[in-house]
C-alpha cells in the first residue's frame, strides 16, 4: 500500500510523492505549478521563489486554456496581496494576454474580487493589452445600446437569416476543421464537410409515420442536406442519422423517469414536454439534442444535459441551435 498524499487541483489528482521532495527549480509543467501552490500554503518556500516558479510555469507549454487562467490569477493575487507590485503588474499583464487567447476559460471576476488586484486593474494597465481607448468604448457602447433597443422592440430573431441551412452547415464544417475543435476523421478533413449524404424523402416520411408526428420543417430541411452531423467539439453532441431518431423515452426511459420524477411537484408542463420529446442527437452521450413539441405543431429545440443538474438550454427552433454553433465557432469558443 502506498503511503502518501494526493494533491487535488480542480478535479485533477497529482500524487505528491512524485515531486514533493524535489527542489522546486528542478520541476516543470504541472508538477511545478502544484509544488508552487503547496509551498505557498505550507509556507515552505520564500514568496520570491514561489512567484518565480509560477512565472516559469506560465511561460511553459503546459500553461494553456484553464491552466493559464488559473495560474495567472493565483500569481497575480499572491503578488498583489503581498506587496510585490512590480511582479503583480507583470502577472496581470500575462493574465490579460491569456484572456485574449483563452477567453472561454476565463472569469474576469476573480481579480476584481480582491482589493489588492482591483486597485491595480483600476490603473488601466490592461488598456493597451485589450487595445481599448475611451473612444472605442464609447463607440461600442452606442452600437450595443442601438442593437439592444432593436432587439427589445422586434424580439428575438435569427442572426444568419441571409444564409441557407446548407451554407450554415458548410460554415460550421469549415470553421471547426480549421480551428481543430475535435479529432475529425481524415475523410471529413479532406472533404471539409462534417455531414453525410442527404436523407431520402422516403426515409423522412417513414420516420414521421413511425413517430406518428410531423417533424419540424427546419429539421426536415437539415435532413435533406445531411443525414446526421459529426460532433464539432467534446461538448457538442453528434446529430444522429434518421434511423436513430426516436422518442427519448424509447431510447433512455431511465433518464426520463429520473428527471421527470424530480420535476413532478414543480412543473407538470415541463414533464409533458420532456416525455414527448424526440431525440435527434447525443445518443449515449452526456448531452442530448431534443425536439420538443409545443401546441399548434410548433417545436422547441433543447440541448439537454442531466449531469451536474444542468438541465436544458431552450432554443425557439432547431435552426437557432445550429446558428449558435456557428456563432460559437466565429467567437473561437471551442478553440483551446
Amino acid at each position, binding site marked *: 500500500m502506498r503511503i*502518501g*498524499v494526493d494533491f*487535488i487541483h480542480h478535479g485533477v489528482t497529482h500524487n505528491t510523492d512524485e515531486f514533493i521532495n524535489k527542489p522546486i527549480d528542478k520541476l516543470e509543467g504541472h508538477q511545478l505549478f*502544484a509544488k508552487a*501552490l503547496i509551498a505557498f500554503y505550507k509556507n515552505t518556500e520564500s514568496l520570491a521563489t514561489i512567484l518565480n516558479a509560477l512565472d516559469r510555469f506560465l511561460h511553459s507549454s503546459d500553461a494553456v486554456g484553464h491552466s493559464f487562467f488559473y495560474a495567472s490569477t493565483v500569481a497575480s493575487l499572491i503578488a498583489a496581496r503581498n506587496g510585490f507590485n512590480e511582479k503583480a503588474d507583470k502577472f496581470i499583464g500575462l493574465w490579460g494576454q491569456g484572456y485574449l487567447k483563452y477567453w472561454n476559460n476565463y472569469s474576469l471576476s476573480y481579480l476584481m474580487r480582491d482589493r489588492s488586484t482591483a486597485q491595480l486593474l483600476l490603473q*488601466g494597465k490592461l488598456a493597451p493589452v485589450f487595445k481599448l481607448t475611451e473612444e472605442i468604448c464609447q463607440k461600442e*457602447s452606442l452600437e450595443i445600446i442601438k442593437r439592444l433597443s432593436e432587439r427589445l422592440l422586434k424580439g428575438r430573431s*435569427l442572426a*444568419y437569416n441571409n444564409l441557407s441551412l446548407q451554407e450554415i452547415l458548410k460554415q460550421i464544417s469549415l470553421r471547426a476543421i480549421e480551428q481543430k475543435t475535435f479529432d475529425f476523421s481524415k475523410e471529413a478533413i479532406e472533404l471539409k464537410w462534417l455531414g453525410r449524404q442527404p436523407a431520402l424523402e422516403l426515409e423522412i416520411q417513414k420516420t414521421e409515420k413511425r413517430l406518428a408526428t410531423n417533424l419540424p420543417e427546419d429539421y426536415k430541411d437539415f435532413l435533406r442536406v445531411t443525414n446526421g452531423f459529426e460532433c464539432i467539439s467534446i461538448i457538442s453532441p453528434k446529430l444522429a442519422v434518421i434511423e436513430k431518431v426516436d422518442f427519448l423515452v424509447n431510447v433512455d426511459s431511465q433518464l426520463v423517469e429520473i428527471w421527470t420524477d424530480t420535476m413532478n411537484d414543480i412543473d407538470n408542463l415541463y414533464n409533458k414536454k420532456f416525455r414527448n420529446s424526440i431525440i435527434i442527437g447525443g445518443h449515449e452521450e452526456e448531452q442530448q439534442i431534443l425536439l420538443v413539441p409545443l401546441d399548434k405543431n410548433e417545436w422547441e429545440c433543447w440541448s439537454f444535459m442531466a449531469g451536474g443538474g444542468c438541465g436544458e438550454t431552450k432554443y425557439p427552433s432547431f435552426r437557432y441551435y445550429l446558428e449558435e454553433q456557428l456563432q460559437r465557432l*466565429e467567437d473561437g469558443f471551442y478553440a483551446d
Partner: protein
Amino acid sequence: MKEIQSDNLENVYCHVTNKAIEWIVAGFIIEGNELLENLWRYGIEHSRDLWLQDEGLQIMWEISGLAPLKIPFQFKGLEEIENENWSRFYPSWSHT
C-alpha cells in the same frame, strides 16, 4: 453583436454586463458604468448567474468611489467577498 439579436434575453443581459466588465477591468470604469446604467434602464431582470461579477464590481466601485446609479443587486461585506475568492484557490489533499 449577433448574440444581442438571437440569444435569449438573460444571456443577452449577461453578454452586455460582461462587455462592461471587460472595460472596467481595463480601467475604463466610467465607460463601463455608463453601459451598465443604460442596460439597467431596460428593466430586464438581473441574472442570478452574475453573482461573481456583481461582487467584483462592488469592490471596483467601492475602492474607486465611482459607483453607477440604481444598482440592481445587494452589496456584501468586502472581507466576505475576498475570503470566498481566496478560498477558491486553496488546494485540497487526500491521504491514501
